[in-house]
C-alpha cells in the first residue's frame, strides 16, 4: 500500500475498474481438488491471474519434535512464492513476508481443524504461489482449506478468503495487482461460512470505520460464494466415479 500516484484510471466514469469489473465483482475463480499424487490432499486454484497450489501431509509425526503439543495437533503452514511467480525474480526461500503469511494462515486453519483428535502430531500445509497477481494469501488459504478436506482432515468447515480494498476513494472487492500497488487500503479476510466467524483479518492503508465495515461486508459476501466453489471442487473430484455403495462398506469388517 502507499497510494502510489499513477496515470492509470483505477475507476472510470462508468464505475468500471481497470479490468472492466464493477467495484463489488470478483475475478474469475477456478478450483480443482486432488491434483497431486504424493500429498495426502491437494488443491489447485486459479484466481484472476493468480496460480496457487496447496498440498497437505498429515496428521503425521510432528517435526520439529520440540514443538509437539501433547493435547492437540499443530497446523503448520508454509507459504512460499516461486522465484518466477513475480515480474522481478524473487530469490528462492522464505522472506519475512512469507513467514508472516504462513503464521496467519496456520492460525486461521487451526481454528477449524479438529486438532484435539490428533495429539502430538502435525498437519503440514504447503502453499506454493506459482504466479502472483495480488491476493495470494487469500488464494492460498482458500486452496489450503480444500487441500485439508481432500486429505480427510476432520474440520468444522472450510475457510474461504477474499480481500477488499479501497482504490480511487471507492471500496472495491478483490484487488488486482495494479490496484494493490496504487490503492489506498487492503483488507484480506478469512471467513468460516457455517459459523459466520472471521479467522483471518489484516488491514493496511487509510480507512474510516465506515469504509472498513463496508469492505469487510463485501469480502464476507464474496467468501460465501467462494465457499460454494470450494465445495463444488471437492464434490466433483468424486462424483464422476460415485454411483452406489454397498451398506457394508461403512462397517469395519474383520480382516481375514
Amino acid at each position: 500500500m502507499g497510494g502510489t500516484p499513477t496515470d492509470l484510471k483505477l475507476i472510470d466514469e462508468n464505475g468500471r475498474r481497470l479490468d472492466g469489473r464493477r467495484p463489488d465483482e470478483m475475478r474469475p475463480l477456478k478450483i480443482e481438488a486432488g491434483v497431486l499424487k504424493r500429498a495426502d490432499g491437494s488443491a489447485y486454484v486459479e484466481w484472476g491471474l493468480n496460480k496457487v497450489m496447496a498440498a497437505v501431509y498429515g496428521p503425521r509425526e510432528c517435526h520439529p519434535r520440540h514443538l509437539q503439543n501433547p493435547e492437540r495437533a499443530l497446523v503448520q503452514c508454509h507459504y512460499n512464492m516461486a522465484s518466477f511467480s513475480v515480474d522481478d525474480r524473487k530469490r528462492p526461500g522464505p522472506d519475512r513476508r512469507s513467514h508472516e503469511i504462513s503464521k496467519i494462515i496456520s492460525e486461521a486453519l487451526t481454528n477449524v481443524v479438529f486438532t484435539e483428535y490428533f495429539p502430538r502430531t502435525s498437519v503440514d500445509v504447503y502453499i506454493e504461489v506459482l504466479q502472483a497477481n495480488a491476493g495470494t494469501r487469500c488464494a492460498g488459504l482458500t486452496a489450503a482449506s480444500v487441500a485439508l478436506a481432500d486429505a480427510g482432515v476432520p474440520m468444522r468447515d472450510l475457510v474461504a478468503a477474499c480481500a477488499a480494498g479501497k482504490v480511487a476513494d471507492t471500496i472495491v472487492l478483490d484487488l488486482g495487482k495494479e490496484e494493490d500497488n496504487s490503492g489506498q487500503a487492503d483488507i484480506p479476510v478469512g471467513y468460516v461460512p457455517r459459523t459466520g466467524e472471521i479467522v483471518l483479518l489484516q488491514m493496511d492503508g487509510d480507512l474510516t470505520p465506515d469504509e472498513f465495515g463496508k469492505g469487510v461486508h463485501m469480502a464476507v459476501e464474496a467468501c460465501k460464494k467462494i465457499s460454494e466453489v470450494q465445495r463444488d471442487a471437492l464434490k466433483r473430484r468424486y462424483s464422476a466415479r460415485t454411483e452406489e455403495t454397498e451398506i457394508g462398506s461403512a462397517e469395519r469388517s474383520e480382516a481375514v
Partner: protein
Amino acid sequence: MGKDVVADLKRDYISKLLAKGQRVDGRRFDELRPLTVETNFIGSAEGSARVKLGNTEVVVGVKLVTGEPFPDTPNTGVLTTNAELIPMASDTFEGGPPDQESIEVARVIDRGIREGHAVDMPKLCIEPGKEVWIMFVDVHVLDYDGNLFDAANIGANAAFKSTIVPAKRAGKGEDYPLPVLHQPISITAVKIDGKILVDPTHDEERVADARLTVATTETGNLCAIQKGLDGAFTLEEIFKTVDASRRIGAEVRSKL
C-alpha cells in the same frame, strides 16, 4: 517413516519381477512414462513449462534480468540454474536451504543446458564487459515420483523455445525470442540387479545400485554425464546406456 516404509518392502518384489523381465508398472526397460509438456504456463515468467513425466510433475520458469557479466566471460550472458525440492512434492523432501540432492539436480541440469549450448549465450551480451542478460532457470518440483533430472531438463528445453527476452522492460529495445541453438535432452537410467532401467520411478530409484544421466544434442554428441549413487557400472553398461540415451533423447526431442 510413513510412506517410505513401503518403498523398502518393495525391493524384493521389484527384483523378482526384474528377473522375469518386468517392471512394476509394466513398462519395457527402455520405455519412458507418459510425458506431457505445457509451455507458457506462467505469465509472470519470461518462459515456462509444466512437465508431467508419469507422476512426477515439475514447473520450470525462466526469468531474465540485466546485470554484470562474470569477469572471465565479459561478452556472454550468465546462466544460473536452481532446483526447489519443496516438501509439497514428497514427504522425503525437507524444507530449508538446498541440500546436496537439490544442488546435484540443479548442477546436472545446468551442465546439460550449458555444455549442450541450448542457448546462444554470447547473443545475450548487451554491452561487453559491462552489461549482459542474466538468465535464471528455476525448477519447482510439485509432485515427486522419480527422475527429476529428465523432467526438469525437458521442462527447461520446452521453456526456452517460447521464452521472450524482456528487452523493452529493461529499456534495451524491443523484446525478442531467446536465441536457442540446441536441445540437449537428458535421459536417466538406474541399475537394479544388473539390469538397466530408463526413467526410474521413485521406488526404483530407492532400490537402485547406481544411476546414470546422459545428455545428448541433435548431433548425437554427448554434452553432459553424471553417475550417481554408490553402486558401480561396467564399461559395457555405460556404453549401452549412452546409446539408449541418444536414441530416446531424439524421440523426446521430436515431441517438443
